[in-house]
């Protein structure tokens, strides 16, 4: 997202004039990332779409100022952070509404059950971590278990901030893949399918 290559004045002028082709380019360049990030942080396709929509509407409303913006990517990043945070708050409120509507579901699993589930998840996560290459593992642990910032990890390990970021991306991807393969979520769906066509 911070990549500034390919931002030319003709494009910015096109944006400020509200030309469709210029906005199409803006959309194709930033939409996939914003949508994906918003989806991850709000856990809802509808909320993520709202967030994306709001951001682009805002860019449209402020199109006249875009040519004067020093760093378009940074500007869009800031918009994204603000709107994703709003989306997360909305998600939090909606989840409480849902709980009010369905009190029988909001009770959640029994405490022992929840603890067991928690233990399972931690074990899976630990296993996933063990499979990571050393440096990735170290970076992940520093960030997620010790709560260090990228900057602090970089200094501690004597590597660049950029490298920290790359390690984190790779680690997250590997962990997600591992968890996806080892969690047993769709079993219920499987049971309801099999009797019909076995």
């Amino acid at each position, binding site marked *: *997202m911070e990549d500034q290559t390919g931002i030319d004045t003709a494009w910015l002028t096109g944006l400020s004039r*509200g030309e*469709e082709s210029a*906005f199409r380019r803006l959309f*194709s360049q930033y*939409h*996939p*990332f914003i*949508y*994906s*990030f918003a*989806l*991850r*942080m709000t856990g809802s*396709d*509808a909320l993520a779409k709202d967030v*994306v*929509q709001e951001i682009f*509407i805002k860019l*449209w409303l402020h199109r006249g100022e875009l040519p004067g913006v020093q760093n378009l990517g940074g500007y869009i990043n800031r918009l994204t*952070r*603000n709107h*994703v*945070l709003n989306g*997360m*708050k909305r*998600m*939090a*409120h909606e989840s*409480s509404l849902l709980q009010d509507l369905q009190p029988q579901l909001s009770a*959640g699993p029994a405490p022992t059950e*929840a603890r067991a*589930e*928690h233990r399972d*998840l931690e074990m899976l996560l630990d296993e996933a971590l063990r499979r990571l290459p050393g440096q990735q593992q170290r970076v992940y642990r520093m*960030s*997620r278990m010790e*709560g260090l*910032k*990228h900057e602090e990890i970089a200094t501690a390990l004597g590597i660049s901030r950029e490298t920290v*970021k790359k390690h*984190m*991306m790779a680690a*997250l*991807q590997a*962990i*997600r*893949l591992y968890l996806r*393969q080892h969690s047993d*979520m*769709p*079993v*219920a*769906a*499987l049971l*309801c*399918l*099999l009797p*019909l*066509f076995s």
Partner: protein
Amino acid sequence: MQSARLAYLVRRYHDKICTPAEEAELMALLRSEATGEEMDALLEELMEEHSPEAAMDAAEQEAAFSRFWSKTRPPKLRRLLGWSAAAAVLALAVIASYQLFRAPEAVKPPVADIAPGTHKALLTLSDGSTIALDSAGNQLLQQGAATIQQKGGLLEYTATAENSAIQYNTLRTPRGGQFSIRLPDGTRVWLNAASSLRYPASFADTREVEITGEAYFEVARNEQAPFIVKMPGEAAVEVLGTHFNISAYEDGGDMAATLTEGSVRVKRPQASVVLKVNEQALIGKNETFITVNKTADIAQVLAWKNGVFNFDNQSFAEVMRQLSRWYDVDVVYKGAVPVKKFGGELQRSLSLSQVLEVMKEMKIDVRLEENRKLVVMP
């Protein structure tokens, strides 16, 4: 203290490793806390780490753009559109009442069922001419130095002479079609629906083919001439002689190469890995590296070739894409794409209505409408 806990939970939420209890705690904190600068810095870091995975396909993206763009149009134009919409509704109402009074028997007929895919493909020869192939066909063709024999759903190439100019042929399956081919070196390739294979009618020193969509390869061993399969996005698989599956649909998620026998090298411009048996290389469209999945679900990867759908752990969108390709239907979402994971297997020989019957059991409301539209209700 409070904000450290919030940061911890937000990170876990981003990594998708929150337990239900932690998620509930996070929701409560988000509701109560005035999230300030720290949250902003945290999101900044998470954005840096984030690699997009749930990319929309081209059609969804286009729809999103239209939604946005329509909001930016001046009100005058929108009023005009409003009028034309009103006119259209009126016209529909007129037609509907006309139909109602004219023909009481004109109840909308049920949409005909759709049969599963069959053996069919289109062969394009080097001169650009095309030949439609189906399972009933048996024919003999000559292409430069090669003889081509069609036996039902299989196309067989035999090299008859050597050292002639290389002529490229392309075998293309439509949606609702699959086909298989034996290349002049003895390599067998099975093509799934909506896929294509471009290959030389006779091989020289190197064996190079190009693929889109999905195919399973059984490459005939030849140490002297490596076999190279090129995929979209400058990715490629290089082998001497092995069995593997490649899935490289433009509208799908990650491209994947899965090895079932021997060994292969998978490459893209900035990365290269060697796969062992039962490993899978995932080639994400928005990244430059290759992820190796050491515990690939081989049964699932090869399901299509064995005549079944295997929906274990597949996303809703992926399941619908597979149905769209095999039954040649367009999927239309009336609401958001449902967040639902699937499981289980279904025979690919079922008719579409039988598949929909099963989905109904799973409380998924999908309707077949006219013009081969599969409508997913919210």
